[in-house]
């Protein structure tokens, strides 16, 4: 399956195919590749020429000290970086073999294909639990299939269905922090993305909720390519297959998580994962 990112609207058939495909348990995942990616805020060079591949159906963790450019890198992947005035991106981001920054690509299609979960749970405050999840298809204009069914499936995938199925009409902000974050995950996957980006998704949560999110990530990777930024070394070690270490806007090294945590090539990585700085 290829992901349609062109400016032309999807035909109902294409939509149906994409919808059904995303709905089944196992989809061929999609690879995201960064080619010499650089990002700026005004003239501050926040991401410096990063080359990195995110493998299909794998969880890649991005680690590094505060301010090293992890969030910026993540936001370049779904083109949210350009929402901040005065910013600039150079280099390429490829989804399979489509260049996301090419002129022919519609930015809303990029964001439909690449979902995002933010650090702080942020359900829409005016919407019910149901509407928060339905906001995905509604806002992105994704049609096809039964909305109720889609909402239920997303909530089930986010391991939240059983807790909220009897109060779908209550406000989303009435849930606990951990539930709210799973609601946001349900919202993100309700659009049937191919890739899910998570920026410290558990940093505002208690240990039990954190663990639930990690289990969820483990489950979601059967269907999505997942990139997760985290400050928590144990979390990176537990939840990811690949780890990338960034320092000062540069990618220092990336590789299998076990290798990065046990015998990294670079001495700076070694010092960071062993807690000697950062």
């Amino acid at each position, binding site marked *: 399956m290829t992901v349609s990112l062109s400016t032309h609207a999807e035909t109902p058939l294409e939509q149906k195919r994409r919808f059904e495909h995303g709905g089944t348990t196992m989809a061929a995942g999609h690879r995201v590749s960064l080619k010499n990616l650089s990002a700026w805020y005004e003239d501050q060079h926040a991401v410096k020429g990063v080359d990195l591949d995110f493998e299909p159906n794998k969880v890649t963790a991005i680690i590094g000290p505060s301010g090293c450019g992890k969030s910026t890198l993540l936001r370049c992947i779904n083109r949210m970086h350009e929402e901040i005035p005065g910013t600039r991106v150079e280099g390429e981001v490829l989804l399979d073999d489509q260049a996301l920054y090419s002129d022919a690509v519609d930015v809303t299609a990029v964001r439909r294909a690449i*979902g995002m979960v*933010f650090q702080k749970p942020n359900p*829409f405050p005016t919407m019910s639990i149901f509407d928060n999840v339905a906001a995905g298809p509604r806002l992105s204009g994704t049609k096809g299939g039964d909305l109720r069914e889609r909402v239920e499936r997303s909530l089930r995938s986010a391991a939240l269905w059983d807790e909220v199925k009897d109060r779908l009409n209550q406000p989303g902000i009435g849930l606990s922090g951990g539930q709210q974050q799973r609601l946001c995950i349900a919202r993100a996957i309700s659009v049937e993305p191919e890739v899910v980006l998570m920026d410290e998704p558990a940093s505002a949560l208690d240990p039990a909720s954190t663990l639930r999110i990690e289990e969820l990530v483990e489950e979601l990777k059967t269907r999505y390519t997942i990139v997760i930024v985290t400050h928590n070394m144990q979390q990176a070690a537990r939840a990811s297959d690949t780890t990338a270490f960034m320092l000062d806007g540069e990618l220092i090294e990336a590789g299998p998580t076990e290798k990065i945590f046990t015998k990294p090539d670079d001495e700076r990585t070694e010092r960071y994962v062993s807690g000697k700085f950062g």
Partner: protein
Amino acid sequence: MNAVLRPVSKARKRRDLAMRASLGLATALALVPLVLVLGYVAKRGLGAWSWHFFSTDPTGSFLGDPGGIKSAILGTILMVALATAISVPVGVGVALYLTEYGKNSWFAKAVRYFVDVMTGVPSIVFGLFVFIVLILSGGVGGYAGWKGSVALSLLMLPVVTRSAEVVLLLVPHTLRESALALGSPRWRMIAKVVLPTALPGLVTGSLLAVARAAGETAPLLFTAAIVNGTSLNLGQRMNSLPVQIFTDVGQAQDRLVARAWGAALTLVVLVLLLTLVARYMSRRSRLT
């Protein structure tokens, strides 16, 4: 004696008391005129109130029954309603442009500056402007209710725009980002996330503008003009509460002056009600 938790000295206690007392006194002083005005209006106005007062039009006759203020109440409601229908969509639209699109561009800055200037323009200037452009020019007839509404809407526009911009800026940026990150076009993000979140605040700001417009005399004097009978047609001359008060107070007859007090109290109550609804709405808002 414990050196860390030294007791407060007598002098300091005295100073504290003096400061509190003078602040309390200043507050009381500021409240005096307000209480006096409200009390006096209520005292004089209630005497004029009766069923007859609200259910008849001014007769215009100097002898006999002067009539009530029905046409003035209906005229104020109609003209302010039309002014609201003009200024709220435009004002909220301008505010949306400023917060969602223009941001800090030079054009947005210029718009913001002009809106600020407009806030300071005396209301009589708007009345004169409409008088010159819509009445003296002769193209669209003479005095009419809708021309009064135009003058009022010019007055309301900066108030609505400014308050809407403040409220829209209170909508957390993260909500906009999560909508966009779902693949929402910008306009849909605004319609489905930003506006509903800001709604109570937008209503509050608009109601305060309405309350302000309801009490204005000057923009109506040269636009909707003076008339006694009730008209529900905005294409014709229309009476209004402030104009009724203005003309009645100038008369050398106690009965007419009494009607002015009654009308003034009616206006105060109307504005008070609007303000109460506005406060209620703003308390329902989830934005701080």
